[in-house]
């Protein structure tokens, strides 16, 4: 049972990591396009949208890599959880304001669909990240205690 849970945890962590790595890489390739997607939400002021378009893709990529390699994995899952909560809020505000636009989460590659599907998907992802954070934090504290 323990082994099965470890395998399941590994698969979930790897899937979340690969998802964020690919999302980050797609946006790094074309930050101009990502800036347009952020501005279409009409929530952030220009300077904030501009900074987000440049920094957020790298944050996703680095955190995804950290999660995959288990280096800084607690910090990475904490960052990714914060990002996912922000995405859910953004999409919910856009939905409330009647804005129907592509979130630009995966660059040109949009496989999720509308705003509601995005909220459901991100909520599930948040659950996986919370589990990852809890597991990584537990492992790190056991490791620290052994030293």
């Amino acid at each position, binding site marked *: 049972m323990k082994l099965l849970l470890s395998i399941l945890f590994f698969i979930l962590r790897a899937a979340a990591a690969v998802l964020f790595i690919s999302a980050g890489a797609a946006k790094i390739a074309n*930050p101009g*396009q990502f800036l347009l997607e952020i501005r279409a939400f*009409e929530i952030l002021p220009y300077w904030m949208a501009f*900074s987000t378009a440049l920094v957020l893709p790298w*944050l996703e990529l*680095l955190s995804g890599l950290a999660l995959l390699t288990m280096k800084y994995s607690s910090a990475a899952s904490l*960052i990714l959880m914060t990002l996912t909560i922000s995405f859910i809020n953004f999409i919910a505000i856009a939905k409330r304001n009647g804005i129907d636009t592509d979130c630009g989460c995966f660059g040109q590659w949009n496989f999720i669909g509308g705003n509601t599907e995005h909220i459901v998907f991100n909520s599930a992802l948040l659950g996986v990240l919370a589990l990852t954070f809890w597991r990584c934090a537990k492992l790190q504290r056991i490791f620290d*205690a052994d030293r």
Partner: protein
Amino acid sequence: MNSNKTLTSQAGAFSFSVKLLVRTLILLTLSVILGALSLYLNPHAPSYGEDILREGEIDLESALAIKDVVWVDARSGQEFERSRAKDSININEDDYYTQVGEFLARWKNDKTVIVYCSSDACSSAENIAERLRREAGADKVFVLHGGWKSVFSSGKLTLASGKAK
């Protein structure tokens, strides 16, 4: 004995929190540095303040410079009747098949078609433009950057209201 255990546990939690904070800051700092570098090294990176157009988009200045234009208003019928660009045709997603007839009657293949909806935040102009390309066979179809907001605020286009003739 018990208080020793509590102290060790508290120290462990504190050390974990400090490590977590430092590592989070390291990841954040690295991302900011790489993001700033990409501003100079990535050819697709935008310049600050630059108005970027999506593929298939056109800005109002360029649109006004084109001679033969068919304006398509992709907003709802109510919004169209309230105020629109003069001589524009209303084709929205709900009534596409009933409204596309008027477009086909006015459009010739050499004419440029410019579609707009409320603003950059709506996707109906993009969807209508795609359908006009695919289903009506129109080649020169653009989506107006900024949508109706840019038409209205520029004051460069004659406006009309009420039911279309």
